[in-house]
């Protein structure tokens, strides 16, 4: 077999171009069927009852439930600790009924007597003298220490400027449009089908089989379309487990998608955190010493933070880190777990030090970034945002205009490599049709589209000549979509499968052209002898002789078709209304290297999406649990504010084509990392208000302006 390579990117006719997503029309017209849309004969609707206290011993009385045909399940016992819930809105019972409304009625007929336990929802409460013991090993867990404090302090004393600050970042929700959940089609017997909103098609079958008491081979998982995951949807999860129990109990299919409140409170989150930092800088902009103390706040989970000085170099650095547990649901992975948190702290303190020394924000970054790729990308971002014509490059003037304009920067990193796990099948039928299948899933990133595109490119077809089938556990194995690993794990297997299918196909076609298989080429819907393009045969005719079995090939991962290690530089331009504190992000530039671009349109959409998610986090998003009542105050889309179309800036999303690696890399995570940092720095650059506590709401800007005088 010939060596398999992607080839030069400029030689591609489909890959490395803007490809419209093949399922786009289905999605925008509503034809696309999500798990939430599944309707089966005899199906019941499930609802989950969450405990309204951060910790309580519930006494559940179901005797009052008189909704006809309702089934009640109590999933609680195995999740309680000493009879008590350990996190706010922890499910304590569930019901299934003929309609969602009846299920809701039945749920409210369950009488619960709560014996409230001691709880903590803030780190202060969790660290207080009479705090409840939340984790088995206490409330401070996974402590770590790195570096030499004494040495760092000696270096700090030598610095020309020292800034001490505390940066706080709130808990962010994944806010997937489709909530967590499944439809379990099980009515007794040996087989079941699970329609899941998941990032891991193959993972659900095993979990569901265990819960249903079936063999894994007899449980099919289907994920035709799914409405967003961002890291929160691996495995069967609580709602799926409860749905299986309800289906087993009722012997009816059960549809259980969380309602929005439960989604906000019981389906995971991006951990918040506090980073206390002292940084020291030299007059030339060199970051010489950094002391960081990181607290991760992930509810009953550990939270995430990659540590400091993150992407930057610091002469000496000393970091301590710990998680503080509270009685709220566990943090989960969320697009670049921990990275936005780390970015906000380091990008802010570098900016603060630069301002203190009157240094150019752009140049001081380059000074402390060893990797030249960042210099190139920062320069590009600076050019696009208009940095060179921007009057103020360090500190704003004392006298502010009614509308003050500012620019800020931040950088990103990610691995984005894949691993050997995906098995892709490509079949060429004797009528010329081609189907590519793998049990992967499309989280909205365009997996289905590049599955068809890679095969079409290899076979010289148009993308609509290839059917892409995904989201079915009966298809070849595929990895969980997390950490930007889907594409680097899957795309190489697709390429190999398509390549092998083409070679097998050429073996069969070569005699028709009286040529050797190695002499053939497929392009523009024809198979021809490469040296003599006139000796050709149309694709359909070439396939006609394949017989009933057609040609089939399976592809596995090949390491050198993917790579790891990407960067990114982003710049935000904001306008601050100094009379009212109103903030507008007017322009946002994001430059990212991505290895081989499979679909340039989808890549720019990924960049836009990451920027939007970061902008929304920067301006609005924050979970609020009332510290005295332990009550959730914004578990709805009204009160938990997400950026809308009116809040969008002008986007300049750039694929860094100076990266000439002919290998596929996962890049989605990097795009979300530095947005809020760039915005924070832009606010300071505009009006001199340094916001160390996200989100950057009008009240904070205005009070900051007031204290500036």
């Amino acid at each position, binding site marked *: 077999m010939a060596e398999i390579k992607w080839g030069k990117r400029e030689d591609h006719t489909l890959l490395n171009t803007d490809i419209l997503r093949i399922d786009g029309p289905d999605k925008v017209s509503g034809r696309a069927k999500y798990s939430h849309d599944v309707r089966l004969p005899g199906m019941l609707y499930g609802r989950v009852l969450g405990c309204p206290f951060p910790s309580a011993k519930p006494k559940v009385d179901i005797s009052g439930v008189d909704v006809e045909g309702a089934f009640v399940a109590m999933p609680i016992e195995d999740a309680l600790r000493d009879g008590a819930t350990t996190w706010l809105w922890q499910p304590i019972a569930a019901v299934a009924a003929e309609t969602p409304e009846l299920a809701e009625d039945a749920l409210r007929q369950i009488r619960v007597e709560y014996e409230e336990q001691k709880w903590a929802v803030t780190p202060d409460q969790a660290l207080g003298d009479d705090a409840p013991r939340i984790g088995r090993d206490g409330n401070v867990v996974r402590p770590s220490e790195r570096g030499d404090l004494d040495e760092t302090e000696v270096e700090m004393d030598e610095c020309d400027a020292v800034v001490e600050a505390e940066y706080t970042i709130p808990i962010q929700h994944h806010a997937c449009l489709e909530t967590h959940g499944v439809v379990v089609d099980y009515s007794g017997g040996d087989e079941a089908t699970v329609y899941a909103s998941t990032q891991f098609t193959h993972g659900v079958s095993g979990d569901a089989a265990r819960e249903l008491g079936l063999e894994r081979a007899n449980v099919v998982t289907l994920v035709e379309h799914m409405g967003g995951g961002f890291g929160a949807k691996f495995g069967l999860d609580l709602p799926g487990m409860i749905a299986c129990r309800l289906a087993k109990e009722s012997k009816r299919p059960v549809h259980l998608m969380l309602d929005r409140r439960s989604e906000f409170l019981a389906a995971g989150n991006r951990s918040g955190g506090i980073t206390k930092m002292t940084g020291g800088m030299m007059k030339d902009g060199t970051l010489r010493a950094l002391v960081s103390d990181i607290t991760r706040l992930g509810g009953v989970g550990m939270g995430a933070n990659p540590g400091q000085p993150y992407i930057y170099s610091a002469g000496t650095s000393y970091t301590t880190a710990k998680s503080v547990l509270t009685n709220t649901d566990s943090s989960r992975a969320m697009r670049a777990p921990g990275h936005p948190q780390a970015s906000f702290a380091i990008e802010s303190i570098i900016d603060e030090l630069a301002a203190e020394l009157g240094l150019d924000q752009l140049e001081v970054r380059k000074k402390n970034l060893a990797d030249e790729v960042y210099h190139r990308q920062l320069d590009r971002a600076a050019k696009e945002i208009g940095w060179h014509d921007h009057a103020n490059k360090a500190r704003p003037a004392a006298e502010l205009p009614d509308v003050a304009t500012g620019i800020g920067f931040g950088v990103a990193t990610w691995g984005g490599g894949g691993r050997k796990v995906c098995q892709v099948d490509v079949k060429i039928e004797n009528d010329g049709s081609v189907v590519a299948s793998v049990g992967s899933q499309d989280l909205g990133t365009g997996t289905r589209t590049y599955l068809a595109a890679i095969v079409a490119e290899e076979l010289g077809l148009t993308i609509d000549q290839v059917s892409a089938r995904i989201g079915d556990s009966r298809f070849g194995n595929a990895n969980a979509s997390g950490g930007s690993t889907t594409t680097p794990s899957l795309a190489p297997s697709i390429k190999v499968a398509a390549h092998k299918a083409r070679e097998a196909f050429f073996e069969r076609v070569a005699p028709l052209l009286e040529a050797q298989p190695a002499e053939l080429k497929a392009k523009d819907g024809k198979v021809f002898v490469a040296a003599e393009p006139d000796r050709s045969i149309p694709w359909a005719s070439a396939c006609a002789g394949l017989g009933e079995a057609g040609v089939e090939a399976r592809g596995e991962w090949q390491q050198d078709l993917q790579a790891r290690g990407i960067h990114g530089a982003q710049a935000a331009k904001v306008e601050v209304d100094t009379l009212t504190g109103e903030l507008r992000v007017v322009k946002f530039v994001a430059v990212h290297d991505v290895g081989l671009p499979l679909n340039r349109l989808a890549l720019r959409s990924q960049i836009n999406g990451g920027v939007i998610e970061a902008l929304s986090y920067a301006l609005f998003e924050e979970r609020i649990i009332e510290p005295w009542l332990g009550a959730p105050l914004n578990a709805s889309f009204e009160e938990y504010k997400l950026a809308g179309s009116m809040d969008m800036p002008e986007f300049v999303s750039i694929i860094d084509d100076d990266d000439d690696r002919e290998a596929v890399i996962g890049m989605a995570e990097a795009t979300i990392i530095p947005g809020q940092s760039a915005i924070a720095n832009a606010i300071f650059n505009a009006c001199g208000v340094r916001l160390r506590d996200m989100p950057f709401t009008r*009240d904070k800007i*205005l009070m900051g302006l007031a204290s500036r005088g």
Partner: protein
Amino acid sequence: MKQFEMLLPGSVDEAAKSLPTDDSFEGRRKVKVYAGGQDLLGEMKEHLEEPDAVVNLKGIEGLDRIVPLGDGGLEVGALVTLRALEREPWIQERFPMLAEAAAAVGSPQIRAAGTVGGNLCQRPRCWYYRNEHTVCLKKGGDECFSFEGMNKYNAVLGGGPSYIVHPSDLAPALISYDAEVTLAGPGGERTLSLDEFYMLPSEGDVTKETRLAPNEILTRIRIPGGRQAWRSTYMKVRERGAFDFALSAVALALRLEDGTVREARLTLGGVATKPWRCPRAEKLLVGKRIDDATCRAAGQEAMRGAEPLDHNEYKIPMTQGLLTKALRKLGNA
């Protein structure tokens, strides 16, 4: 939401008669008035209201009209949608503050369904009130949790014992146009100024925001004429660019002669327990030209008596800043 009966009266009288005379009596059948449903449905879904019946006004003829009056005034039926107000060129031209206020409400979907009557009678957005599990003063409990709690969005004016802010965008604009409201009950109609329609939490039943009796229905609004020489504007600061309630709002109407203010109306939204008319600031503006000193002084007067809680002090400079912008806008128009 809880199941309920839907009543479809053919007249205002019939509708009013289906309402209980007193809603304080425990165990009585609970009936709620339904128009666009933009607030009521949310309340029912969150189980803040669980009526046994809702009286749907949409079948009543004549409540959805915008009627220009002979004196240059305007009558607006309670069922007129916010979108109709926002889009009516005649209103945009003569009552711009009203069109701007209507356009500032919620989202296009909400404005398409939401009505004038519903907007004026809507319940507070305070998140303690909106959380089913926190039984606050507004819901018959004995504590206003926002007083010492997470009160960033709460009132700096007119607070005590409740600190909600009145959420309406239309009300401040209508009050600055001296609007009157007509309420219909089983005994007939009564009219009062919209300013009087609202009450402070200290003035009566703290679970209510208006003087609407349990068996009354708001049927129409009248704006008196004689405003041809006035300029007006509604300006609102919110966090999100759309689908958000006011952090602060200014409804300002001025009659200017050669750059000098001859008459003024100023009502604030988003900062007080009711739409907050500012008579002292209005008086201060009369006889003044719009310059920085006037803006500063008017801002001082408008926020006189403000008592910030722990997290809402920003509303004072925000409102003053917004008033400055509104004054400059009208002064330069």
